[in-house]
């Protein structure tokens, strides 16, 4: 310091402190996106987590959740030891037990079920990323009652995509961010597909030559940076899209060549009302679909070379019956005035001019701004193309489409629009991610043979049915599964119906179960519809005082709301303490540029007596003697746990959980197990990626070079083209059954429903809840979404993130609030046909005027997650789950269908209708319903509530 006492003091700043003594790569699990991370460790503690710059998913960036991973890893609510319930269910009174006792208890319960009636085990998992293991385990156990959480997540999108394109949004596809010039996002909540979409939107907007349109009732997150926000009324997206289709047809703006070559648009459909094959494709003796070739003027197999198939015009077949091409049928339908913008605009809450203009903009970009890449390629029937032509229009859709009871058809309508524009897997369009595209729909089918005691199922419990013969039914036609998946109620429920399991098990409908095994699913709270009744189902006893659901076994890493409702807790590790594989057999990390998969490796040893659930599952399998999990001498086949399985398990010869570095270490896709495989992954940053050649990059379903590659890799059974299915014959097969044809027919009470909703072309209908309640009494739609910094996040409590959001408001448009006499910040009741919940209002303009919404899964139960009882999450945070019914209002006949899409069983939680009214002054200030506090369990909570994480790393 100089003579001047106020002169700046120079501090000795250490500009190059040692950040870490070790840096390990692994895969994030703070949400579902599977980004690559670099974990900086110092003295065994986590110093810093950053995105891995080499990783194909996030390319070095990391979202708020991933950046807050430290606080989940060191959460106060981590479980420490296996627990056995002592008090009544829900109380949270447990005794700690040793792993040996816990496993014995589980084996005893599971072994008894398997020896008698394996389907009395219901095994359901939440945000699990090891479904290829858990599904295989269920198969070996012999229960059909297995699924993950897809039934309440996005099965409408998955099913619509798989049955139309052989791929789907998000998991199985992505926009061509590099080339797209017009991008529409339908109903994509905050932060879905977190970093890839954010990277993509940033790229697209920074490039400056593209338009981004967001169709969403709420203008937050991604919608906030859209060039155009279309604040549509919930559940009407299908109408909007079909009006766009109407406009494009009227103006002859569709890609005729694409339709004729790569879709079933020219396939002939039998037009013979009342016949057993009405509405099916005209086929030759070998089963090939037929088209009318305008060159030879004859009906020929669609796979012929050099055809010029007709897209319109009815034809008389040799047997004298009429047939028409698919395109003819669709044009006939969507040209009708009922699909005109004038007819739908009011219902959608949009202007006629806006719908017309969007159609015009789509046509302009698709057909006037086409892209040509100088890449030659050969299509499936040998046509050589010197260039790749792109129609640079791309779409992405998510929950706003999916979580409605009309979501399957709405998503099919979006795919129809993409197909008409010729923008499937072309430059600038929507592109598949390997191992997709797959045959439409992909194999396998769900196993239909009845379970047998002590035996594995002959095939997997989850698959894709192609007609009534693939339903999982008891001999009397009643549902064969506890969730009624693959029954006449929801024939194409390809992800199961996790949201119905607890209700049905309680109702013993279709039959009682003995053991409910759950993993990573907060089913007594924010992962269930109708929380108050779900708690009743979990705790109700019979006349003898025994629980109606006899045994509940649960695995979780944290003290969540679900833990107290289980009888036996198998404590899991955090994501930094485990092996995992992000497999091509399940939900890999591929991009449109090529297949990729990844692993998690333990970067810190657990300091608690906990075990990774996958290790435990394999251990239980070995103790139960399940096929594939024991050697011939009865010893465990994978004594090294999940890591051992990841390396050595083969699903088919040469095909294992991980595709990279197989065999001698130089083989990819197929190859023998390689004992050094995991080290090879670690050496490469914990992921494997294969770059497709330029020639294989686009037109993948029809691209010979790609198809040959995909077959070699084991992605598809044969190098055959995947012809896009605008018209879905499996749907028509179900409909014919409803009309009295075929071996298997729905019982009378389901016939009208199946007939109506199994339309082989997309339809729109009013969401069921809206149609079933008095909309004058319940005038508003109610939606939920999680905030960006918590979206898709498991272990939903975090010391840093809760400082950003720890209570939720009900957002209402000021004019709507004004009509209701509600002012900003007031407390209101939100009432549905099921019940009511109380919350505090926040006014915002960026919301559809007939819609209210809130942040989801902020509300916590007192006692859970290591939070104080007066935490805002418990006092003010509210869940709309409390007022969303898992059953629809009673309809004709008294039967209450589940509140789900009639085709896929997708939980329709965005169908919610409510009224909102001010609560009395005495009621203001705290949410209701308020449940009894759970007994606290927070072994790692600092006594003074102060977190000073990182002080030990400060070297300055």
């Amino acid at each position: 310091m100089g003579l001047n006492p106020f002169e700046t003091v120079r501090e000795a700043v250490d500009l190059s402190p040692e950040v870490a003594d070790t840096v390990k790569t692994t895969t994030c699990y703070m949400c579902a996106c599977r980004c690559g991370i670099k974990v900086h460790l110092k003295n065994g503690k986590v110093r810093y987590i950053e995105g891995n710059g080499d990783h194909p998913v996030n390319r070095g960036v990391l979202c708020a959740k991933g950046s807050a991973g430290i606080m989940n890893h060191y959460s106060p609510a981590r479980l420490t030891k296996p627990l056995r319930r002592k008090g009544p269910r829900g109380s949270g009174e447990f005794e700690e037990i040793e792993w040996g006792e816990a496993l014995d208890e589980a084996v005893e319960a599971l072994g008894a079920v398997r020896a008698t009636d394996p389907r009395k085990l219901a095994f359901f998992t939440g945000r699990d990323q090891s479904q290829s293991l858990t599904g295989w385990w269920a198969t070996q156990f012999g229960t059909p009652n297995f699924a993950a959480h897809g039934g309440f997540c996005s099965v409408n999108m998955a099913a619509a995509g798989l049955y139309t394109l052989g791929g789907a949004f998000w998991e199985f596809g992505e926009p061509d961010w590099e080339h797209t010039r017009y991008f529409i996002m339908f109903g994509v909540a905050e932060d879905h597909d977190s970093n890839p979409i954010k990277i993509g939107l940033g790229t697209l907007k920074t490039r400056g030559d593209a338009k981004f349109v967001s169709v969403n009732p709420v203008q937050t997150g991604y919608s906030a940076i859209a060039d155009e926000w279309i604040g549509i009324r919930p559940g009407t997206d299908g109408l909007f899209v079909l009006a766009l289709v109407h406009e494009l047809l009227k103006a002859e703006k569709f890609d005729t060549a694409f339709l004729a070559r790569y879709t079933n648009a020219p396939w002939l459909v039998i037009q013979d009302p009342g016949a057993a094959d009405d509405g099916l494709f005209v086929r030759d003796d070998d089963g090939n679909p037929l088209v009318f070739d305008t060159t030879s003027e004859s009906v020929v197999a669609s796979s012929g070379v050099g055809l010029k198939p007709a897209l319109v015009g009815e034809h008389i077949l040799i047997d004298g019956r009429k047939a028409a091409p698919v395109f003819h049928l669709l044009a006939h339908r969507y040209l009708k005035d009922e699909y005109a913008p004038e007819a739908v605009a009011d219902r959608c809450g949009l202007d006629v001019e806006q719908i017309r203009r969007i159609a015009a903009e789509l046509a302009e970009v698709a057909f006037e701004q086409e892209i040509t890449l100088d890449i030659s390629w050969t299509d499936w029937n040998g046509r050589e193309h010197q260039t790749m032509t792109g129609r640079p229009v791309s779409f992405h859709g998510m929950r706003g489409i999916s979580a409605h009871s009309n979501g399957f058809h709405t998503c099919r309508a979006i795919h129809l629009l993409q197909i008409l524009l010729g923008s499937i897997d072309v430059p600038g369009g929507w592109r598949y991610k390997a191992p997709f595209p797959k045959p439409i729909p992909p194999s396998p089918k769900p196993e239909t043979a009845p379970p047998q005691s002590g035996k594995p199922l002959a095939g997997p419990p989850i698959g894709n049915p192609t007609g009534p013969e693939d339903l999982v039914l008891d001999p009397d036609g009643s549902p064969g599964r506890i969730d009624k998946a693959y029954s006449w109620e929801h024939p194409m429920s390809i992800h199961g119906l996790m949201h119905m399991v607890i209700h049905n098990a309680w109702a013993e409908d279709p039959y009682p179960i003995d053991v409910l095994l759950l993993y990573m699913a907060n089913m007594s709270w924010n992962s269930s519809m109708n929380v108050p009744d779900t708690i009743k189902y979990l705790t109700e006893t019979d006349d003898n005082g025994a629980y109606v659901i006899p045994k509940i076994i649960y695995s979780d890493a944290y003290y969540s709301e679900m833990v107290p409702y289980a009888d036996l807790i198998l404590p899991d590790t955090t994501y930094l303490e485990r092996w995992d594989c992000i497999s091509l057999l399940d939900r890999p990390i591929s991009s449109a540029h090529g297949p990729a998969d990844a692993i998690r490796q333990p970067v810190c040893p657990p300091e608690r007596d906990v075990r990774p659930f996958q290790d435990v599952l394999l251990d239980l399998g070995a103790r139960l003697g399940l096929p594939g999990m024991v050697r011939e001498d009865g010893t465990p086949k994978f004594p090294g746990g999940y890591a051992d399985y990841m390396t050595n398990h083969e699903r088919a010869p040469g095909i294992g959980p991980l595709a990279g570095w197989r065999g001698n270490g130089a083989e990819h896709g197929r190859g023998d197990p390689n004992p050094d495989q995991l080290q090879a992954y670690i050496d490469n940053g914990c992921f494997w990626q294969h770059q497709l050649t330029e020639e294989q990059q686009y037109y993948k379903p029809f691209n010979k070079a790609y198809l040959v590659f995909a077959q070699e890799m084991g992605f598809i059974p044969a190098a055959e083209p995947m012809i896009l299915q605008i018209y879905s014959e499996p749907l028509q097969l179900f409909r014919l059954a409803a009309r009295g044809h075929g071996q298997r027919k729905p019982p009378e009470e389901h016939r009208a429903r199946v007939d109506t909703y199994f339309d082989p072309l997309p339809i729109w209908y009013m969401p069921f809840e809206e149609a079933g309640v008095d909309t004058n009494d319940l005038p508003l739609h109610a939606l939920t979404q999680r905030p960006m910094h918590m979206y898709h996040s498991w272990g939903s409590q975090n010391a840093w993130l809760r400082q950003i959001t720890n209570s939720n408001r009900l957002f209402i448009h000021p004019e709507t609030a004004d009509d209701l006499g509600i002012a900003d910040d007031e407390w209101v009741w939100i009432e549905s046909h099921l019940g009511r919940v109380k919350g505090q209002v926040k006014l915002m303009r960026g919301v559809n005027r007939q819609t209210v919404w809130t942040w989801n899964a902020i509300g916590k139960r007192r006692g859970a997650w290591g939070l104080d009882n007066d935490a805002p999450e418990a006092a003010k945070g509210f869940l709309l789950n409390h007022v969303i019914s898992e059953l629809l209002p009673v309809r004709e006949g008294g039967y209450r269908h589940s509140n789900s899409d009639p085709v896929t069983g997708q939980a329709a939680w965005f169908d919610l209708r409510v009224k909102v009214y001010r609560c009395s002054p005495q009621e203001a200030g705290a949410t209701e319903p308020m449940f009894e506090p759970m007994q606290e369990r927070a072994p790692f909570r600092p006594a003074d509530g102060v977190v000073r994480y990182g002080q030990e790393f400060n070297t300055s």
Partner: protein
Amino acid sequence: MTSLPAAPPSKKLGLVVDLDICVGCHACAVNCKEWNTSGHMAPLTDLDAYGADPNGVWFNRIHTFEVTDEATGASQTVHFPRSCLHCDDAPCVTVCPTGASYKRSDDGIVLVNADTCIGCKLCSWACPYGAREYDEHEGVMKKCTLCVDKIYNETLPEESRVPACVSTCPTGARHFGDLADPESDVSKLVATRQGFELMPEQGTKPVNRYLPLRPRQDDRDGTMSTPRTLDHVDDSADGAGLLARWVDRLLSA
């Protein structure tokens, strides 16, 4: 009371934040907290972390608000990240009675020397941007260091030597560089996009810049070049005429 560098720093390191593509995801805020809670000013203390009023030290906070066009009623949601702007005329420095708050002469970064900070909070009163963060537990004022222990850190690979908020930003809305150099990428970006100073009337001469929203291509004013409606080829009821026309043309590929 504490003096700024006698000569203006030759470099002015700072941030450029693109409001047009910020989606308000909080990645920058949380990654900043994660880096810095173990960094130069460690820890970034959190009080009542699991209780009724959780509040901690954050160097970067995101504010989300709506802007409504009075004329049309149209609203726009804006996400606005706020952190220290490393001002040329930093009032938080000149107000400091102990010399703890200072501006580095070589790169312009404003720092606080925790050893000499007496926690009087004058600097937080002086800062018009609310960019100072008081750690009640330690009685010390803390603030954005521009990751001074990361951007020069020779133990890290070259590409990691940028502030945490910049390297983690998923949309690429945050940029880091020398705003004194007109040829730097950040300076050119500011020039191209008409980057602006926050509250210039305060006279603090902030170094950081914000990039404004680009004009939205929503055609609210009908000036876009694309057609506003498609011409219908045929307007016969239910499209009967079109189907007939397509049969005639055979519509084949």
